[in-house]
Every structure is written in C-alpha cells, then in structure tokens.
C-alpha cells in the first residue's frame, strides 16, 4: 500500500467563465415549443414508427395479398390438398388467424421499443 499523496494545491482566482454552461432546459420543452431540435426528434420518431408500420403492411400485402395472385398464376395451387383438407381452405380458414396475431404482437413490441428509446433520449437531458 502506497502512501496517499494529498492533491496538489490550487489557487482559485476566478470562476471558470469560459466553460460550457450546462443546459438545464428539458428536451420536452423543445418538443412543446416546436424548436428545430424538437422537430428533429419528432420526425425521427414518426419516421421510425412509419417504417415499422409499412414493414408490417408490406408483409401482409405480400403474404395475404399474394394469395389470389398465386391462385391465378399457378392454378395447381387451387386444388392442393394436405391430408384430406384442401390447402386453400386450410390457409384462409385457419392459418391466417394465428399469423395475424403474431404479426400484431410483433408490431406492438417493436413500436413500444421505439417509443421507449424516444422517451429515454428525450428524458435523459
């Protein structure tokens, strides 16, 4: 164990005028007052959310909206059977619903994450 040196003595002559002052305004005020900074945060939040929404809608458009097109372009798919059950019936009467639920849950989790990140970023200051 080494012997502790006392900190060197400092002569105080004046306050540090040239140091950056800490901004005590909360960022929520920027949002409230629609300053440029607030707008940047807002458009970041909105575009993140919108991207997520469009991703989910795109998945639905391809997965569900693609079905009639598939039936039209590949007629063999119209009469495919799985066991005794025709595949188109199985997909439209049963499979669609759990998939919709999973997609909805995925969306909620992701959009809450985006909002949490936004709250943290805004609340930190």
């Amino acid at each position, binding site marked *: 164990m080494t012997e502790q040196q006392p900190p060197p003595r400092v002569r105080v002559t004046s306050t540090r005028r040239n140091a950056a002052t800490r901004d005590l305004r*909360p960022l*929520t005020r920027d*949002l*409230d007052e*629609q300053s440029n900074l*607030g*707008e940047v945060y*807002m458009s970041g*939040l*909105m575009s993140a*959310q*919108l991207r*997520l*929404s469009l991703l*989910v*809608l795109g998945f*639905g458009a391809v997965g*569900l*909206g693609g*079905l*009639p*097109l598939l*039936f*039209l372009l590949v007629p063999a798919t*119209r*009469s495919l059977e799985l066991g*005794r059950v*025709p595949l*188109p*019936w199985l997909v*439209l*009467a*049963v499979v*669609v*619903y*759990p998939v*919709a*639920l999973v*997609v*909805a*849950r995925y*969306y*909620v989790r992701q*959009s*809450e994450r985006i*909002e*949490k990140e*936004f*709250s943290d970023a*805004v*609340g930190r200051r």
Partner: protein
Amino acid sequence: MNTAYGITAITVICTVTLVIGAFGLRLSRTTSDFYVASRTVSAGRNASAIGGEYLSAASFLGIAALVYTNGLDMLWFPVGYTVGYVVLLVLVAAPLRRSGAYTVADFAEARLESTAVRRLASVLVVGIGWLYLLPQLQGAGLALRTVTGAPGWVGGLVVAVVVVANVAAGGMRSITLVQAVQYWVKLTAIAVPAFVLLWAWTGDGSPAPEIASSTQWKEPLNGLAGQGHPVYATYSLLLALALGTMGLPHVLVRFYTNPDGRAARRTIVTVVALLGAFYLFPPLYGVLGQVYLPSLPTGAAADSLVLRLPAAVLPGGPGELLSAVLAGGAFAAFLSTTSGLTISVAGVIEQDLLRGRLARVTGDDATVVQGFRIAALLAIVVPYAVSRLIEPVGLATMVSLAFAVAASTFCPLLVLGAWWRRLSTVGAAAGLLVGGTLAASAVGITVLAGPLHGWPGALLGQPAAWTIPIAFTTAILVSLATPGRVPPHTARTMVRLHTPEDLALDRE
C-alpha cells in the same frame, strides 16, 4: 324447429342485456361516463367489448351462409374483418387514442382545426352507421322469423327497443359491460354447437359435401359475388375490409375508452386473438350445411342456415336445443353491434345536430344526457324504417358496402391525418367528399338496382379498389395545391399524436 326453446333463448339474451345495462346505470352518472365510460375500462374488458360489438349479424349468420352458397372465396370476409384490425393497429391505433377525440368528427376538428370538415365527418359517421345498422335489423327480423315464425318486422323492433332502453339508460358505461359479456356469449353459442355437430358428423363417417366435387364451390377465384371478374372482386373486397375497419363509427368510439395509446395498441392485439378464435367456427357451419342440407326449403334465406343446421344433423330434442342456443347467440350479435352503432351515431347526432337546437327550444333546460337519449332514439328509428322499405340484399354483402364507404372516406382522413404534415383542410374535405360520393353512389346503385353483370357489376358491387385510391389521390393533390390551408398547429398536433404519454408534455 321448436318455437318454445327459441323464444326462451332470445328472451334470456334480451333480459340479461337489460339487467346488465341497468346495473351499469347505477354506475353511470357523468357525461364522461355516458360517452367514454370515463376512460377507465381495462384492456382485457375493452378488448372483449370490441369483439362483442364487432361480431355482428354478418359474422354470426352471414359468413356461414356465404360459404354455404358460394364456397371458398367467401372465407375472405372473416379474414378481411380480422386483418382490418391489424391495419388499424399499425396505422392509427395509438395516434387516434392520443388525439383524445371521441368520434372521427372530433379527430377531424382537432387535427384540421376546421368546423366544416368536422360537419362533413359527422354526416358520414351517421350515414355509415345507418348503412351498417340496416343489416343488423334485417338479420334480427330474419332470425326471429326462422325461430318463431313471427313476421319480419318484429325481430328488428325487439332489438331496437332493447338497445334504446339500454343506450338511453346507461350510455357507454353499461354498454361496455354488456358487450364484453356478449362476446363470450357469442363465442360459446357458436363454438359449443359446432363441436357437437362436428362430433355427430364424424359419427356419420365424416362424409364430404356433395358440392365438393364442384370446382366452383371448392376452389378459389370462382364464387365471389357471382358477378365475374373474381380476381378484381377478391382484391377489392379485401381492401374494403382491411381499410374500412378503422372508419367504422362503433370501432372508433371504443378507442377512446382506453386509458392511453399503449393500452389502445395492446387492446387491439387481444381483439385480433378474440376475432380469430370466433371466425374459426362460421365456415364450419357453411361446409356442414352442404353435407346435411344440400338444399334449403323454398323461400328460406341462406342467412338462416346456421339456425336450421342443427335440426338437420340431429333431429329431435338435441338439435332443437342447439338451434335455440344459436338463436340466442345471433340475438346477442344483433344487440351488441346495434348498441355500439347506436351509441356512436347518437353521440354525433347529439353533439353536432341536436345540442344547439335543443338548447334554443328548451331555453337550456335540457341536459346533455337528455339530448343523448333523444339522439339515441333518432339513431335507430331511421334505419329501422328504411329496413322495412328496401329489399334485403344479404347480410354480409350489405355490411361490406358499409365497409367500402368507410374505407373510401375515413381511411384517407385518418391515415393522412396521423402521418402527413402537409394535409390541408381543403384537401381533407375534398378527399371525404369525392370518396364519399363515389362509394355512396356505387352502394346506392347496387342496393336499388340489384346486381348488375360484367365489369359495371363488379366495379359497383365492390367499389373499394377504385374509390380508395381516388380518395387518397384527391386528398393529396388538393393538399399540395393549397399549402396555405395547412392547419397552423399541425406540428403541435403531431407531437400530441405520436409522443408516448410518459413524457411530461403539454397535451392541452
């Protein structure tokens, strides 16, 4: 069919509805209770209430009838009804709740800062609500006639009286509880008989329906509306249902009973689960109908299939009992959807049409709640009268027309309103007017002139695929042409619509 069982089931449902409503009356004291149940409804109960309200005559009787008659293509109906909630969830759920508005009209006013757009939206809410109420009341008449042989006007009247008594008495507080209960009533009433019928069917060696040899019925892209152009019709229907859900008056009102935007989203996820569970059953009735009832008695509407099927599968007591259970469930469907529509239409009538006039006539003696009661009566008497005048065109068809109008008007308003800062007052109004006029004309021609053939029939019978893009384009182009009419507080409104509530922001 055993009349006594059927009447008992329907009476029990109506009585339970009134009793729960009366219980809610004791809790319902303020205007906020009336309109939004004071925003204190929990997510689980709210989701059950949304499910209860949404599963209408079209879901309970109509889908089975469509699958029975037209086969596979009709499965797009329940799929669209469910997917509509996912679309609503990802596009508008949280912003709508955070807007703090109660109806689309309130949202329009808050977002666009214009009473003219508000009034336009109000008229559309009432119009769509009435269009959606028609098949409910017709369905009630049909169900009561099938079960008891009563004339067609009685069923609708019973529903109208019970609903007005409930809505006028307890408002949203009591209706929320009634509807939450009715979801589970409906699920039980359709699931239990379905399992019994399936068991009987496997006992018979699970015969395939004779019609399964017909590709028309069994394979996709054949049956939709029977008007030809099945690919167009399928897409148009899917669009109408997926985008129309968010514009239905009774769906929107339910949003505002959530405590915050996050709860609104979570509620919708539960709704998707509840709807999916319910929609597994109606197609079963359609298929089993083709096994056991390949042809209906002459003069019987296909919409009565669900009620007739049990007696055909299990002749005698058990079949009659199941029919009674299904009749009760169908009545729960009419009552809950009609209540939800009546309460939202009444809200708009009271706020936008009645309040000023009533105050003038009575010298401010009438309270808001009294006005609401008068409005509730108005909200249901008009569609009831119309339902007696026009010929039924099929429950699910009628409902899909209401969806098409909602999708062509409120979908552009809500989506652009929530996400596009450059939406102008004029642009929004133009979108509503153009979309509303086109969709309403298509509906009017289809209902009054009957089904047409060829492309005109397809385009008018399923208008959504062209009316929605036209409405969106109109709103966008007119907004870009009138940048001076972008509401001055748009940025402020966007902060309110999109920021999570845990931030301490000024939300007015």
